[in-house]
């Protein structure tokens, strides 16, 4: 079929027409190969302009469309819709930016006009090489896999489960609740509020749309948004494997505590009555606060920032829970002398400052200190430290509670490998974008919530779980089909040498190696068309639809000619 390209130049009010001699542009390009018609128009993006274009495409029986106007970022979608309305495949259209790239950039009208001619010529050349691309639709499964039955996983499950959406909640221990099971009281309001967690666990267990798989670990996950195939092993029941499908995954595998033994100066495991934060939570929730010899402590040191230097980040929650411990101690043992050894105080939330001021009023000492060393001294404990003034000081106590840093769960690397997720320098999962997309991952349909992303308190974990649930609820609508990216990468078998360089650059993990054929293959259903593999392929074996080498090469040639 012969080509008939329509070229329409937008005056953009006077934005373009003032700075570019549009008539000359039309004059220059009208005679080019395949150009059937070249015209100008006042404002193509206006309702009248769009209507005009639809009529023109139909009347002139155009096979391709080139529009010289503003940035494609602004109106490419607008004109693609126009094409659809006029019955022209929207990928047989090319937008040329002669406003930002010519009119607004160059004050000399002659030079701007010359550049506009080159760019439009390039667009015309490019569009002749365009191919029609069709959108496809994929069935998608609305169910969700939640990995980790701590507070983040529980919240995500409760937010997601419903009559049209089943949630599989996989927990590796035998009970839900995660780290909160070990807590004595919850921040910020202490008291007997632990029941709110128990209530949530109750709600999960009573929810018929949530299938709780305890004592289970995720063995394998394959697939993509809307179509994940999952296998989970139960290690109680003879490693029985359960297989099911889900459309999205929430990773909420929480954290571990930094092992203070890694920093021997704290005396953990060596000096009696030096305990970590979770041990204190358990002690105060299950029994009395006593020393190894059964007597209550007369003086307690709370040591902040254990592992902060070693791990390289602040764990955000320790200041507040150390103050909580001090208050629990003061409540239970009114005569106890409590000292908090801190490096910097981190009190970021709105109720934190007040909580701290109250603690000070209760007579808790706050000592800014560094270089802490904990030693055994005649059945008591000597805390040696460097004060804020730089002096070497010491304090004798009976018990020292170490606020260990929160470190990534030991399961993080395994889950990262199964799902092909990146980790950051700290060893926690890496956000798709730390600021703009903090719970998403490079893998579409996989979200992370809670402490798996880094240290945080319960409210922040809940917020993230709700956010992940929100993302899933809006993308995986039951009954709605998914429309994958059309401009995907394609590997040409005859050129692929099987060097697998593309596998190492694919951010989305959609390329795999076909051992039998000895070549790489792209899963086009989940390819996002970023083009990294195309650039990395030493053999030029990968092409990306709509950005093929001939299209780009000819376009550039024309622009530079």
């Amino acid at each position, binding site marked *: 079929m012969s080509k008939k390209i329509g070229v329409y130049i937008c005056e953009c009010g006077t934005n373009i027409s003032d700075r570019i001699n549009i008539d000359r542009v039309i004059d220059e390009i009208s005679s080019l190969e395949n150009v059937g018609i070249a015209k100008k128009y006042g404002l193509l993006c206006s309702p009248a302009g769009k209507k005009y274009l639809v009529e023109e495409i139909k009347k002139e029986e155009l096979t391709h469309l080139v529009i010289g106007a503003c940035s494609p970022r602004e109106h490419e979608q607008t004109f693609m819709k126009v094409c659809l309305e006029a019955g022209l495949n929207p990928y047989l259209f090319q937008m040329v930016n002669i406003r930002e790239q010519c009119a607004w950039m160059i004050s000399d009208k002659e030079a701007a006009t010359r550049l506009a001619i080159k760019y439009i010529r390039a667009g015309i050349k490019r569009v002749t090489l365009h191919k029609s691309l069709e959108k496809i639709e994929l069935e998608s499964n609305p169910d969700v896999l939640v990995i980790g039955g701590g507070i983040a996983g529980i919240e995500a499950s409760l937010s997601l489960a419903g009559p049209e959406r089943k949630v599989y909640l996989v927990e590796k221990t035998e009970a839900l609740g995660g780290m909160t099971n070990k807590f004595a009281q919850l921040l910020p309001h202490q008291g007997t509020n632990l029941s709110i967690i128990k209530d949530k666990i109750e709600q999960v267990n009573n929810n018929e749309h949530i299938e709780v798989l305890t004592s289970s670990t995720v063995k394998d996950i394959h697939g993509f948004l809307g179509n994940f195939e999952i296998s989970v092993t139960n290690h109680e029941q003879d490693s029985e494997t359960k297989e099911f499908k889900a459309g999205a995954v929430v990773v909420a595998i929480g954290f571990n505590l930094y092992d203070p033994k890694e920093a021997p100066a704290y005396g953990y495991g060596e000096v009696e009555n030096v305990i970590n934060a979770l041990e204190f939570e358990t002690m105060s929730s299950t029994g009395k606060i006593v020393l190894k010899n059964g007597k209550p402590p007369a003086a307690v040191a709370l040591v902040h920032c254990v592992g902060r230097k070693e791990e390289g980040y602040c764990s955000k929650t320790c200041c507040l829970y150390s103050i909580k411990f001090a208050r629990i101690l003061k409540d239970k043992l009114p005569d106890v002398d409590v000292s908090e050894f801190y490096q910097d105080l981190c009190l970021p939330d709105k109720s934190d400052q007040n909580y701290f001021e109250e603690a000070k009023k209760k007579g808790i000492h706050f000592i800014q200190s560094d270089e802490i060393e904990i030693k055994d001294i005649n059945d008591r404990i000597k805390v040696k430290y460097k004060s804020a003034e730089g002096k070497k000081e010491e304090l004798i106590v009976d018990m020292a509670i170490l606020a260990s840093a929160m470190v990534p769960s030991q399961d993080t690397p395994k889950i990262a490998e199964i799902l092909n997720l990146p980790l950051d320098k700290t060893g926690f999962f890496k956000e798709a974008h730390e600021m703009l997309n903090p719970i998403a991952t490079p893998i579409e349909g996989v979200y992370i919530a809670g402490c798996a992303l880094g240290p945080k308190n319960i409210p922040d974990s809940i917020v993230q779980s709700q956010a992940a649930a929100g993302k899933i609820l809006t993308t995986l609508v039951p009954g709605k089909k998914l429309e994958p990216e059309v401009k995907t990468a394609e590997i040409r078998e005859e050129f692929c040498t099987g*060097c697998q360089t593309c596998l190492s650059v694919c951010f989305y993990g959609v390329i795999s190696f076909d051992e039998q054929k000895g070549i790489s293959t792209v899963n086009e259903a989940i390819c996002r068309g970023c083009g990294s593999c195309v650039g990395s392929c030493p053999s*030029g074996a990968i092409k990306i639809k709509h950005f093929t080498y001939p299209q780009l090469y000819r376009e550039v*040639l024309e622009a530079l000619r």
Partner: protein
Amino acid sequence: MTATENIKIEKPTKGASIPAKEGIKKAILGILKKALETESLDAIMIPVKVPETESYAWVLLKDTVLLENANPLPPVMTIQGGKVLSDLTKHGKINKNIAVILRPCETRAAVELFKLKQLHFENISLISIDCPGAIPLSEYLAEPEKNEKSFGNILDKWDKDDSVRAICKTCYRFSLPTLTNTPASDLHIGLSGNTKDDVLLIPITSKGEKLLEKLDLKPDSSLKKWEIKINEIKKIKSQRRKKFNQDFKTEISGPEKFTAVFDGCINCHNCQSVCPICYCQQCYFDSATTKLSSEDYFRRAKDRGALRFPLDTILFHLGRMSHMALSCVSCGACEDACPMSISVSQVFSLVGEQTQQAFNYTPGINRGETLPLQDYLEDEFCEVETPSECEPTNSNEVKENV
């Protein structure tokens, strides 16, 4: 396949000494013959003299009679051995025990191809050999007999001879044993710089050690004397290379001078087809994309006043360079193959070395390394974004020593 199979990490200090009263060629062939006879090896891949042209071809052999015409270190490099090994093993590991004898640059090409998954090392005993250089192919073929003789002299004179190829004269990686966890070859043949001297078989990996054991050879000779000699030559050649880098850079820098180097190019693409690193199934520059319509040609001719045909000669060389510079092992195959005597290998080697330095990368000396473009280091971004502010990267650094 693991990159770390059969690895011995300590630096070799001893080797098995083989007397070479009748010359090194005889000595090495004697050992190989023994390896075939005792079935320590199933076959050997080695250059064998082709009677008609007096040239050399790679032959996979197990017949000890054929071995008589073989030469472990021929005066010329006809086909790059790394490429040959890739041909043999590209589609998976082989099940026979095979030894292949490669020059250091060929060994390094093999390692680069291994990283590009174009070659498998299972069951291959890679034997590298000290190399004084190779005579330019065309010169050798003009007078094979004379050159065969003069190559014997080169082996006695080493660095003092000018009849080797230009790229060989400045080659300071002519000997291979390297101290890495996953070295390039399994066994190295050390030549002390005199054809009548003993030959040293230096085990580098445990695979190499086992091969010596099977041959009943004990690595009990010190490497001191050999090392001193190698380091002496290395020093001279490194200095020569440094001078070459400076001089040649001035000679080819800038668009005009650079274009002039390739002025004579006849677009035969020989350089690409003999290059071990150019492993694409089809070169982009041979594809239809680069051929334009006559209307396009006329328009371009009109714009420029005239148009040289075929198009994109310089683009071909630049494109090839951008593809393989990081892995270029300076083997000189491209220059040998150029009918127009363009100093291709010298240009590529110069650019390659500088590109490699930017990544602290030496191609082909460590099987365990990944290619710089497959290995993303966050601090590399600094080098791109704000070069003046960043500290030099050492994470990719490889110890390279004899």
